């Protein structure tokens, strides 16, 4: 027996099935079913068409004529209305090549090609229907056939075309010989005509006008209820679900859906579906059991979730973060601290060793720098009574270096009895230098500090202060730090302008200060001679000023001070500390060199590894 093709989903079902296995919609009536009562109600045209589909034989004409006589009035009225609409549309619109053709979507519904013979037969039947004026439009007739799968009414040929080959093999629904036998057994008992879907009470007016329609419908329903064949579930073969469907429906997790037999087919008296018969019912959920999780209150945290929690914790509490990289960072920090401590110890040892072990001897320069010689020569030529202005600008941090660098120069000035005026362009310079001067005068018994030194204190304003000092020193710094008139004291009583000073000795660590002094003092009518004692870091920047003659000479750092002492042939701190200075500098150079070599080796090693690995 040929299989049935569902009108809704177009899938092939077993011939004995009443409802589509896939979409549960009622299947069209089989020509072999012996339900005579139902068959009487089927419009002759449709039943004949079905016969053609299944048997391949065209029904006799008299059957068609008989069926035409039995068409209910209401259906005939509908057909007439639709035929009229079609005529109107045909008259109003231009006949295109596809005007009479079925809509494009309809042929797309077909899954396979119709059997050519069956197709021809169906088409013929449909064409006859069209000619008789009983044909509906493709879309509405299809809709009607969906609503009333097998009602015996006519179905357009184009509708049936769209259904495809009912005999085409459906791979999703494999058939077996047992199934075929079962189908044959059930055929006699099967009712082809489905239940009228619309409840009697809800019939529209145009349907309810039919006087005996209700009787017809209710009689059908009663017959269906009495003659519904029992389904033997045990004999039915379980369907093989496709794999994609199995993944959607984990049948092991839930109780299998109840069989059709369990679903009551009677009309509900209450609920949403009250009064509607033949609807799909679900199983009784009250009796359904779903096994809950074994431990529903246990928190299961995945590794990804744990990582996200750690990140959030780090954001909220960055100090207390305990990420996985913390031990690595701690290790790196520990290594850095160790290296820093090692470098500090090495540097300190290199600075202290010459003091602890007198065997270390520095490499003494044989040639004296020209700038040191010039400075010494100039100071030696200063007249004894002419004061020297000592301008100080260095920070307390570099006081140590500059104190050692300036010591031989100041001792030279003190030993020659040259009066000195001290002024600083930073707040602490004058205090630092005064202490140094007092020490120098303590070592020299011939001169007194109070007689030879006047401390003018702090000159504010930076470069602007310099401008005012160069323009008029008496106005710029009228008082000393002792708040006494500075220019009436012995060292400065003969000084009216900046050029009255024998020289300006600048003690600074910043070459910019020297440049400012050079620029501003050069604006005086008679610029005073400039000498400088600078930090070793400023030496390269001060050199051009000496080379151009803008400063008479300068002493730079410990090496310059050593040269000055050697020229004076007077021992001092520079000579005793030069070994320490030299050793520390060489140690620093060695450490930096080793660090660079290690970095180069590491970088080269990383590059080789990358090349090898790549």
């Amino acid at each position, binding site marked *: 027996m040929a299989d049935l093709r569902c009108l809704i989903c177009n899938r092939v079902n077993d011939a004995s099935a009443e409802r589509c296995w896939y979409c549960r919609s009622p299947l069209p009536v089989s020509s072999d079913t012996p339900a005579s009562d139902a068959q009487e109600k089927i419009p002759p045209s449709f039943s004949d068409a079905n016969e053609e589909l299944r048997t391949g034989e065209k029904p006799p004409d008299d059957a068609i004529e008989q069926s035409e006589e039995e068409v209910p009035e209401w259906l005939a009225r509908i057909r007439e209305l639709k035929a009229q609409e079609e005529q109107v549309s045909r008259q109003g619109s231009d006949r295109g090549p596809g005007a009479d053709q079925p809509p494009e979507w309809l042929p797309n519904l077909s899954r396979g090609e119709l059997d050519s013979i069956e197709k021809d037969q169906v088409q013929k039947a449909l064409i006859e229907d069209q000619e008789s004026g009983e044909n509906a439009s493709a879309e509405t007739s299809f809709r009607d056939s969906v609503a009333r799968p097998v009602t015996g009414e006519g179905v357009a040929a184009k509708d049936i075309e769209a259904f495809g080959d009912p005999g085409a093999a459906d791979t999703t629904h494999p058939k077996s010989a047992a199934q075929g036998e079962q189908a044959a057994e059930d055929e006699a008992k099967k009712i082809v005509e489905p239940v009228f879907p619309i409840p009697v009470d809800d019939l529209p007016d145009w349907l309810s006008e039919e006087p005996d329609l209700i009787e017809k419908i209710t009689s059908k329903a009663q017959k269906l209820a009495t003659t519904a064949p029992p389904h033997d579930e045990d004999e039915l073969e379980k369907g093989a679900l496709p794999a994609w469907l199995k993944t959607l429906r984990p049948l092991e997790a839930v109780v299998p859906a109840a069989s059709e037999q369990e679903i009551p087919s009677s009309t509900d008296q209450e609920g949403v579906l009250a009064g509607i018969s033949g609807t799909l019912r679900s199983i009784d959920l009250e009796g359904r059991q779903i096994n809950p999780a074994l431990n529903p209150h246990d928190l299961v945290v995945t590794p990804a979730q744990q990582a996200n929690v750690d990140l959030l914790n780090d954001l909220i509490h960055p100090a207390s973060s305990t990420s996985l990289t913390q031990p690595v960072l701690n290790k790196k920090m520990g290594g850095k601290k160790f290296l820093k401590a090692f*470098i500090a110890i090495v540097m300190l040892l290199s600075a202290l060793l010459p003091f602890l072990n007198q065997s270390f001897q520095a490499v003494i*320069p044989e040639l004296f720098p020209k700038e040191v010689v010039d400075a010494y020569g100039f100071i030696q030529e200063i007249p004894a009574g002419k004061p020297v202005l000592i301008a100080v600008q260095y920070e307390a941090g570099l*006081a140590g270096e500059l104190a050692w660098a300036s010591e031989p120069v100041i001792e030279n000035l003190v030993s020659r009895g040259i009066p000195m005026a001290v002024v600083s362009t930073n707040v602490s310079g004058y205090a630092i230098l005064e*202490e140094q001067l007092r020490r120098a005068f303590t070592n020299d018994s011939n001169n007194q500090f109070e007689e030879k030194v006047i401390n003018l204190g702090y000159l504010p304003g930076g470069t602007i202060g310099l401008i*005012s000092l160069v323009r008029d020193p008496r106005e710029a710094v009228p008082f000393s730090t*002792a708040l006494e008139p500075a220019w009436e004291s012995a060292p400065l009583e003969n000084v009216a302008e900046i050029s009255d000073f024998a020289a300006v000795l600048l003690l600074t660590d910043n070459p910019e200060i020297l440049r400012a002094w050079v620029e501003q003092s050069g604006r005086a009518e008679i610029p005073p001679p400039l000498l400088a004692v600078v930090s070793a870091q400023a030496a*390269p920047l001060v050199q051009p000023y000496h080379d151009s003659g803008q400063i008479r000479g300068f002493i730079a750092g410990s090496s310059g001070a050593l040269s000055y002492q050697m020229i004076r042939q007077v021992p001092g701190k520079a000579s005793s500390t030069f070994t320490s200075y030299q050793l520390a500098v060489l140690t620093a150079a060695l450490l*930096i060199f080793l660090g660079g070599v290690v*970095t180069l080796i590491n970088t080269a090693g990383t590059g080789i590894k990358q090349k090898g690995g790549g």
Partner: protein
Amino acid sequence: MRTVNFLIAVVAGLIVLLGYFFPGLELAVIRKPLLDWAVTLSGVAGLVAILNLVFHVHWKRVHDNHPRKLYSAVLILAFLLTVAAGVFLDPASAGFQKLVTRVQVPIESSLMAVLAITLVFASLKILQRHRNWMGFLFFLSVVFFLVLNSGVLAFTAEIPILRDLLSAFHQVPVAGARGMLLGIALGSLVTGIRILTGSEKPYNG
């Protein structure tokens, strides 16, 4: 108000500039007071900034229970003591000067010693930081000039070729510094001109 600020800045700048280039223009009558006011203003600004630092920034930390509020409290106390010492003892007094020489000098000298070690430590990774020819050249020059300026190469004075070579090397940083300073001077010049012409107004808050 902003226009007034702009005019004051531009006019004052022009007066000082012209007074510098043209001393014979007798602008000194206006220029000198302007410069004196500038010195006074910078001193007052310094005082205001110091008071802001002590009594606003650090006091706020003490008040707001900052983690380092103890250090802020020490700073405030030290400031008050120093101000009191400066007021009651004049700057010439030995006691006040000892405050500077016995406290500030050791602290800052120690920090400079730490700086020397820090710089050596940081210099170990010059090549890591600057992986290019400039970095390599800088690394070589650091090592070379440290050795050169340490004085260990004093024996080269007896070898004329080496003496001249090292003398030439001594001029290299001088020349390089000169070039940089020229560029910096030009940059300072155009920045000053931008202020003078009013293109830049950092004072117009």
